[in-house]
């Protein structure tokens, strides 16, 4: 039997403020199996980031359960085997990229030598090798994004959660990101990511879930979508068809 990397069962999230309540997720249930690349799609405001925050215990679902490798999301153990890249990448401006990553490595209990090795080789790949000792206030958006990816990969996570990882990356970096994700898959890792880049998603994902207004409308294998001979030849057509208003 395949191990389940991530499972959500009946997850509902309601944002409550002083003058508003916003139901952002309704009865969300799905599983991501180990080794899968799962694309989480949906129009702006559908609830993708909300789902990811709930998985990371940054917000708390009003109903339902979330488990990461069998550990409830509310427990610290759930966050030991994951890497997370937030939607908006911003890190401490007055630290250097290397200092930041070494701090995270300490929190993740990674020996310093190993951490440095990982940092250097990652920086080499993404072209940050000269920026390691520069204060991050001087970083461009794309450089921040790369640091963000680096911190997500630091602990060699079994489950990588990326919230729109391609934003701000140049074409070269995007290609690198794609091959990196595929490489992780070959190593048996699981990747869960939200994206609006459907052509990208089509190339790398095993399965996609489509979210609209807080409801999961479909989860489907990309292979099956592309094999459907009927109206859709591409993921994009399929997506637009699913989310179009009744």
């Amino acid at each position, binding site marked *: 039997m395949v191990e389940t990397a991530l499972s959500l069962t009946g997850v509902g999230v309601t*944002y409550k403020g002083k003058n508003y309540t916003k139901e952002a997720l309704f009865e969300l249930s799905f599983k991501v199996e180990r080794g899968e690349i799962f694309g989480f799609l949906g129009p702006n405001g559908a609830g993708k980031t909300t789902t990811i*925050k709930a998985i*990371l*215990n*940054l*917000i*708390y679902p009003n109903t339902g359960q979330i488990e990461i490798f069998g550990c409830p999301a509310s427990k*610290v*153990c759930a*966050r*030991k085997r*994951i890497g*997370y*890249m*937030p939607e*908006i990448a*911003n*890190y*401490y*401006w*007055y*630290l250097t990229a290397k*200092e*930041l990553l070494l*701090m*995270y490595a*300490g*929190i*993740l*209990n990674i020996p310093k030598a190993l951490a440095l090795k990982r940092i250097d080789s990652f920086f080499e790949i993404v072209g940050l090798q000269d920026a390691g000792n520069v*204060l991050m206030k001087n970083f461009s958006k794309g450089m921040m994004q790369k640091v*963000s990816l680096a*911190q*997500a990969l630091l602990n060699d996570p079994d489950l990588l959660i990326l919230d729109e990882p391609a934003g701000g990356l140049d074409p070269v970096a995007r290609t690198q990101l794609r091959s990196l994700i595929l490489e992780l898959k070959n190593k048996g890792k699981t990747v869960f990511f939200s994206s609006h880049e459907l052509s990208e998603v089509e190339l790398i994902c095993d399965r996609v879930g489509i979210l609209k207004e807080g409801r999961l409308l479909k989860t489907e294998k990309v292979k099956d979508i592309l094999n459907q001979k009927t109206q859709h030849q591409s993921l994009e057509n399929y997506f637009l068809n699913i989310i179009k208003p009744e």
Partner: protein
Amino acid sequence: MKTTVLIATNLMKEIFRKKDIYVFVVLLVILLIYLINMNFFDIGGLSRYLKEIGLGMVYLFSLFITVPFSAKLVGEEIQNKTIYPLLAKPVTRFQFIAGKFLGALLVAGASFSLFYFIFYLVDISKGTPVGFILYLETYAFAILMLALLSALTIFLSIHMTFSTTVTLAYLIYFIMSWFGASFRDYFYNFSIPGYIAYYLLPHFEFFDLRDRVVHSWPALPAWVVGCAAAYALIYISVLLYFSAFAFKKKWF
């Protein structure tokens, strides 16, 4: 523990690199030099006032550093969105709060140490020095006071905006410093509930030994020091616990 220390040391690095803290340092050093040059130290009575003014400035500047810096720690992390990747690591919210507190304390402690050391040098060279033990006690008590103040400010900052937090923290500090001792007679009228209520207030004035230095009174006995330290540590732990508890309920 390691996580807490890592959060704290990085916070300290950041604050010292941001450099806005140096404004206070430079200003204080200038004021102290100005005081020394007033050349009043050889007139017996005036030396006491200058001691009072000098120490007053040292405490006031430490207050101006501790309160705003503690008040913005948590809010800034949320505003800058740096909290997301951090809390997505195996970090508990209590560790986060404890790390921020420790970082604030290191910054406040380092600045106070510097200010106090300058005052000490001035006092032993130009003023009327007191016993070394009293200098030490005064120093240790001030650090405890700053720790208590920082914990209180962090606690407030979880519940309210930056400006409200700062205002309220200053208000509580000054009310307790000025009137704390006189609350005693009032509260003690109510026997046990009164004693409890009295010690539930954050008694910053317990930790202010400036008068002893100014008037060259003797140092405090060890048991008083011990009791005060215990009071501060318990108070700080409770404040941090409640801060973490409230922080746990927050959504990001």
